[in-house]
């Protein structure tokens, strides 16, 4: 591949901004300067869809109406563990208005074993949602009831009811995962431990590390199960036609949903079209077709009509994924000078009937420590499955680690902020600490529990890290047309983060035109494949291809104009809505007129995500370095009632080159509010006697009201790394990791007693103060 050298901005403005030379593919566009020198990028351009959303014109999946459309509802188990002897649907089938019923079966034609209350067993399609719901009441199930367990600690007992007790046929080769199964059940419900990851495994000598320590902190930290509550619930509208299934979806990954549906029905990907024009939020559980996609498609195929299937809020709570809970034993040792000598972590958590309850990454990578080991166990319970949830495992892990680090600082007599300067090697977090502390007024912080009177103020801080991931299978198409249109196309979806707008800004910057002159057509698998919106990968993955495709189109247009003007191509520039020959003032044409004079009716180019500049890219798309974040919290604690009020959060973040500061700030606000809710309010309560979630609503499952949301101030730090043509990264995950533990540290500062379990409800405060 032909290469060229680029000089790119590198570092943090106001701190260490400089330049770096990178060898890049010759087809890459020239380097952009820092944001200050750009016209569209780095500016808080208004969202394309702002007006449509606030006026209700935006059509979400639930709003889709198709001729002859049916409404479907899941038929779910009403017991947490059972074998099904029979299901009688005759009365439901005869109910007026019912068009189709589909029951789920196992591969041997039997009904699946029920493993949690609310498990989907089938679906009913009817002429209205009310009829579907009535028909479901007529379905009769003959259960053989079995013992169950929903508590993560009880499930670990050797005599506990087993969740996955089915024997797996003998396997002779576990391949490189190294696991084989001889057909017997082992270890009950406990799976693991997981002791390493891509980021490394155990290191050093733990015992020696603790011997060298002058200070040791050792505690058990507990976090709760946190369910998914996107404003728009999971769901689809499916219109099955032979050879062409159209799926309108609330989705974080249209391409993945298409692929799964094609696999499920054993048809080609080309026969499935997934469209997600608007998605009302997603925090990790909308990456697949789920069970609702194939169910709606099956009912559509069966009835010959389009089928609408949106979940209700209760269904979201019980079956559409959750952030697993954790019980984390954590022991950290440090020398008198603050240097960490050993970190030991052991965790147990439940993702219900699924896996994925680890918490290890933050302990593993946030601070340098020569001796480290983690053991992370999954515990199966008879509860709804876990799902990826905004920085999986990191939020839980940070809750333990960043409290323990605070406690070590206390024992060493060092201010916790200054202590991070001793043990944290990250340059970006150092700047975030400095700028954040100044804006927050950290110098106002008093000694723990030193406020007089029953109502006490406290301040805390915490920090986090998130890797700079990208998805290399990310493609964008840019086209310009004689009529003046400029379009971007990709299957990437906008889940409310503003992906449409940043794509428009990037292409507008390249063409030297206003962002509003660019049309962004995304969220449709008939367009080139884009990335999923998760892991904070979307912006870093799809904006470079969009810019690169625009650059290809631009160069083709300029070549045509250079030929017409008999100019040297290198003298032509495209800026401020014009194309000019910088050596001849008489040669100038507006962008729109230039398009009218194109040799063909349109110029189209596509580009896919390049490897990161500088050779840091890994096979699956890991860029160099991390996205740092530091958050500060100020709280008021009423020691007579136990209520905690968060007064203020200052959140200092980096996401490479911020493309649209207002949108970044909006994401930070969302991350902080979710972190606050996790710290103080939200938790799933399972009834051990019935196996049901007893607060599957938005009343007892408490979310913060407007009055409980604090003043949030964002500090967005430009952090140039010269890794792609836009040098931009995401902010979704980083915004959510540190908030809960920053609040916990502030609560400690207020009352002088640590709370090792979230949510920090009034009873926990009063218990910690020995008042109840």
């Amino acid at each position: 591949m032909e290469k060229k050298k680029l000089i790119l901005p590198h570092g943090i403005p106001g701190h260490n901004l400089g330049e770096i030379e990178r060898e890049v593919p010759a087809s890459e566009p020239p380097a952009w300067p820092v944001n200050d020198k750009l016209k569209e990028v780095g500016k808080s351009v208004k969202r394309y869809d702002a007006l449509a959303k606030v006026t209700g014109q935006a059509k979400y999946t639930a709003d889709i109406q198709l001729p002859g459309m049916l409404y479907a509802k899941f038929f779910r188990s009403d017991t947490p563990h059972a074998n099904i002897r029979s299901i009688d649907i005759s009365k439901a089938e005869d109910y007026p208005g019912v068009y189709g019923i589909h029951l789920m079966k196992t591969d041997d034609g039997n009904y699946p074993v029920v493993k949690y209350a609310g498990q989907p067993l089938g679906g009913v399609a009817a002429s209205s949602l009310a009829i579907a719901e009535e028909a479901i009441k007529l379905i009769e199930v003959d259960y053989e009831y079995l013992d169950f367990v929903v508590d993560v600690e009880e499930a670990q007992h050797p005599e506990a009811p087993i969740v996955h007790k089915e024997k797996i046929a003998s396997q002779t080769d576990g391949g490189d995962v190294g696991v084989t199964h001889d057909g017997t059940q082992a270890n009950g419900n406990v799976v693991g431990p997981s002791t390493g990851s891509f980021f490394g495994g155990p290191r050093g000598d733990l015992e020696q590390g603790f011997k060298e320590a002058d200070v040791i902190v050792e505690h058990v930290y507990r976090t709760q199960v946190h369910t998914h509550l996107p404003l728009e619930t999971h769901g689809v509208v499916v219109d099955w036609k032979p050879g062409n299934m159209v799926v309108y979806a609330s989705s974080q990954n249209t391409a993945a949903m298409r692929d799964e549906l094609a696999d499920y029905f054993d048809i080609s990907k080309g026969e499935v079209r997934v469209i997600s024009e608007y998605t009302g939020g997603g925090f990790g559980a909308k990456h697949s077709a789920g069970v609702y996609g194939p169910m709606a498609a099956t009912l559509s195929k069966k009835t010959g009509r389009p089928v609408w299937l949106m979940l209700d809020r209760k269904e979201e709570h019980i079956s559409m994924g959750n952030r697993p809970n954790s019980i984390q034993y954590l022991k950290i040792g440090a020398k008198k000078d603050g240097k960490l000598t050993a970190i030991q972590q052991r965790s147990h958590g439940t993702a219900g009937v699924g896996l994925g309850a680890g918490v290890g990454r933050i302990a593993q990578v946030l601070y340098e420590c020569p001796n480290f080991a983690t053991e992370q166990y999954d515990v199966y319970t008879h509860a709804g499955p876990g799902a990826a949830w905004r920085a999986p495992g990191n939020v839980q892990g940070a809750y333990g680690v960043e409290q323990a680090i605070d406690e070590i600082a206390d024992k060493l007599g060092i201010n916790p902020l200054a202590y991070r300067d001793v043990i944290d090697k990250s340059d970006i977090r150092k700047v975030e600490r400095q700028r954040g502390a100044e804006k927050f007024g950290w110098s106002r912080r008093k000694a723990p529990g030193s406020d007089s009177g029953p109502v006490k103020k406290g301040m805390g801080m915490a920090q986090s890290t998130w890797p700079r991931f990208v998805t290399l299978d990310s493609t964008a198409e840019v086209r310009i047309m004689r009529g003046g249109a400029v379009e971007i196309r990709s299957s990437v979806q906008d889940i409310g983060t503003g992906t449409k707008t940043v794509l428009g800004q990037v292409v507008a910057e390249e063409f030297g035109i206003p962002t509003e002159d660019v049309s962004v057509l995304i969220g449709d698998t008939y367009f080139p494949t884009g990335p999923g919106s998760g892991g904070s990968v979307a912006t870093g993955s799809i904006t470079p291809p969009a810019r690169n495709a625009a650059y290809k189109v631009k160069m083709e247009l300029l070549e045509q104009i250079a030929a017409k003007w008999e100019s040297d191509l290198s003298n032509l520039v495209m800026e401020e809505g014009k194309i000019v020959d910088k050596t001849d003032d008489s040669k100038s044409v507006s962008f729109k007129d230039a398009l009218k004079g194109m040799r063909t009716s349109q110029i189209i180019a596509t580009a896919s995500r390049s490897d990161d500049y500088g050779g840091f890219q890994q096979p699956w798309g890991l860029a160099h370095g991390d996205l740092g974040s530091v958050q500060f919290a100020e709280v008021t604690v009423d020691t007579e009632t136990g209520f905690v009020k968060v007064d203020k959060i200052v959140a200092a973040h980096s996401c490479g080159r911020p493309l649209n500061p207002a949108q970044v700030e909006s994401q930070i606000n969302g991350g902080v509010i979710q972190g606050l809710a996790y710290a103080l309010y939200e938790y799933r309560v399972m009834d051990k006697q019935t196996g049901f979630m007893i607060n599957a609503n938005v009343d007892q499952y408490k979310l913060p009201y407007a009055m409980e949301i604090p003043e949030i101030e964002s500090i967005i730090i430009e952090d140039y790394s010269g890794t792609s043509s836009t040098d931009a990264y995401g902010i979704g995950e980083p915004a959510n990791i540190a908030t809960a533990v920053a609040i916990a540290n502030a609560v400690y500062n207020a009352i002088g007693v640590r709370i090792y379990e979230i949510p920090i409800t009034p009873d926990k405060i009063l218990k910690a103060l020995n008042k109840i």
Partner: protein
Amino acid sequence: MKTVKPLNTKFCKFLKAKNPFGTLEGGSNEFYTFDDANTIYWCVKSLGAGGPDNGPVEPGMCIPGRRCYKERD
């Protein structure tokens, strides 16, 4: 940091995973399982964390020899 390679195991074509970092594994994508402690697995055929044979869905189980196993295309 080390460079990871995709696993060579012949996983079932219906085993899918979402790793904690936003990318999907399985199906037409390679499997890395580079952070298995935080990776969510599901079966595209049974539509959940339990397989078509009611057994658990995870890389160690969804391999040749299992009743519901199906080789990738």
